[in-house]
């Protein structure tokens, strides 16, 4: 199984075949996660630096667990927890990381393009765990994995992404990946939370939730940053919830077997009603489980590619 990429910066760099490889590998690792002893020696002696310049307990824990289940040593470097990166330029942090000679760097950063900045300067694999508003490829891959587990294919499925699209790296990566896999993607949110030039994205755009979910096979809610109200993008959260909160009632026009996703953490009652988040059609916990498997697959593919002599 040849793996042509040094880094994972966004899903746009992957071909359909690459995605299939990730999905297949993740499926095999998902099986390990169901065993009583959830550990294999695949990456024994390898080291993975988790560089999280922006806080994210979920993604960091998911990568940490993925690394450990493959027997890799993981080292966390967080902006708040370390004097190393306080006030230091990203370039100097990169040089420090490089001196540790890791096999992979997983990076989360508040600036769009930060993962590419690091990838250009290090020889090891760099996996983008979210950069600014730009991309969150591992989230998109785990979302697709979750849906593929249920459906087997995304062809002819309609997926609606709901909420703050403009500021969301999750939405950007998902639009690219879901479309690539054949899904019909819709976006829904108030005009203030839709990106400028969204017409150029080649997807349906709605500001009416009823229309957006009509006939949809899945609705993916995004997390709303509560400070959007102060930024003048929303009048208040009550009004937002009134127009865009996903619930059994607002979902009535969707496909009868509609699935609901959310990357977490959830603002219950704002993005999604509490009962719907816990209902049978909610895949929110499946996403968490898929996340570990997909990240195991990615660490495996990126770290062992050189052992197999995969092409640069």
């Amino acid at each position, binding site marked *: 199984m040849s793996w042509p990429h040094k880094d994972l910066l966004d899903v746009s760099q992957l071909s359909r075949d690459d995605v299939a490889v990730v999905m297949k590998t993740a499926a095999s690792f998902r099986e390990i996660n169901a065993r009583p002893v959830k550990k294999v020696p695949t990456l024994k002696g390898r080291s993975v630096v988790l560089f999280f310049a922006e806080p994210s307990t979920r993604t960091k824990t998911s990568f940490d667990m993925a690394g450990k289940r493959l027997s890799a040593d993981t080292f966390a470097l967080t902006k708040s927890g370390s004097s190393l990166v306080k006030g230091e330029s990203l370039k100097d942090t990169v040089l420090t990381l490089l001196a540790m000679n890791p096999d992979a760097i997983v990076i989360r950063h508040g600036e769009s393009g930060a993962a590419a900045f690091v990838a250009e300067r290090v020889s090891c694999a760099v996996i983008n765990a979210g950069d600014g508003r730009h991309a969150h490829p591992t989230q998109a891959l785990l979302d697709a994995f979750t849906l593929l587990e249920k459906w087997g294919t995304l062809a002819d499925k309609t997926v609606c992404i709901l909420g703050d699209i403009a500021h969301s790296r999750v939405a950007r990566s998902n639009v690219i990946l879901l479309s690539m896999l054949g899904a019909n993607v819709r976006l829904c949110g108030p005009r203030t939370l839709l990106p*400028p030039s969204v017409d150029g994205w080649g997807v349906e755009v709605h500001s009416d939730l009823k229309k957006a979910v009509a006939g949809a096979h899945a609705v993916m809610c995004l997390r709303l940053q509560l400070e959007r109200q102060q930024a003048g993008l929303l009048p208040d959260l009550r009004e937002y919830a009134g127009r865009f909160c996903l619930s059994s009632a607002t979902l009535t026009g969707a496909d009868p077997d509609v699935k609901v996703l959310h990357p977490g953490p959830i603002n219950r009652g704002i993005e999604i009603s509490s009962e719907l988040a816990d209902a049978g059609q909610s895949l929110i916990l499946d996403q968490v489980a898929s996340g570990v498997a997909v990240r195991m697959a990615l660490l495996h593919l990126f770290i062992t590619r050189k052992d197999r002599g995969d092409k640069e």
Partner: protein
Amino acid sequence: MALPDLAVTNLILPETPHAVDLLCRKGHVLGVSPHAPGTAYENARVIDGRGLTLLPGLTDAHAHLREPGQEWKEDIASGLAAAAAGGFSNVMCMANTSPVNDTASITEHMTKRAAETWPGGPRLFPIGALTRGLLGKELAPMAELAQAGCVAFSNDGRPVADAELFRHAMEYAWDLGLRVIDHCEEPTMSPGAGMNEGRVSSRLGLPGQPDVAEAIQVARDVLLADYLRIPVHLAHVSCRRSVEIIERAKARGVPVTAETCPHYLHFTEAEVEGYNTLAKVSPPLRTRDDVLALIQALREGVIDILATDHAPHAAHEKETPFGEAPCGISGLETALSLSFVLTDKGMLDAADIVRLFSSNPARLFKLPHNTFTPGDPADFVLFDPRQAWKVTPESLFSKGKNTPCLGRTLTGRVMALYIGGQPVFTRGECAPAATAAASRRTHGRSS
């Protein structure tokens, strides 16, 4: 007729089909006469200018020289060396130094440093702050600044949101006979955005600044100029929307003038792809349509002048993720080459460039300049329109190597600059008798 003490022979003048000789005496132009082979200019220093284009010394109405306060980016000495290498005999420097140029002592410090650094070199004309500390709260002491040598006022980099204060600034400056230069940007719209808002910014996940953020303030300034009948000069216009407002205003006789910069004529938002911080500039690079509108506006006189907005930064400051990098392009040394590229494409002609980069800005800000009329200062550029050169950090005299031209090959290069009949900068083969001192200063960057 007095005899010349300097003759530069066999030159090409943009608007003249035949070769000419430029004759100077005591630092002034004596005349330009058709070149006749074999003419002997006795007792004159004679320089063979074969194949070179003769241009007047250029005026840059918008440069950031960073001294005092940010000398790691640029200082007055390195800035003037860059200006000379770019063909500029006059340089107007913006007030956003540290401390801000809002007191006479800062203005005097700047002019003194220029005179000490390079007597006879490019002339430095400071621009005073419009508001104290550039804070947009109270007027700077403009009369004091004018007295100390400021030639205009600007809050460049920190647009004034308060329309009432801006109105008073225009009025107060007008009393002093000087013009206000406005950096047009509605400051509440996407503060800190380093690129154009549109398809590219959406895809890259970078906050964008829409062109209307500029045009809204252009419209405000035009309305004020019309109402007050006081001129205002609009800095670095970057988009079609602004051009259209200025065009309508001028047609109605509103006293507004405007500039744009060579980088807005060549690069679009696409240059930011790959998070290229060298393409991060304020206002941001726009679209192809905006580029075409700007070039047409220059040709038709809707935009009056070209300026560099030379904004040097240190390499480490640009080697960051895009959002963290400062805005600015180092522009003094590529300005003329980039402008002449447009003549090759037939979009401007050499006479346009002379008008946009020399006579118009000098007249607008009442600076000494050369129109090749007898008695004019003998400030001139010898330009080789065919010489190709690669823009590398080593090829630039400015400390700021931050330009999207880096690594590209430009055609057309300044070979020499004379100010007051003296060579202040010469390059390679065409080197006339450069004075040892000037040579040392212009080539001393490696030390």
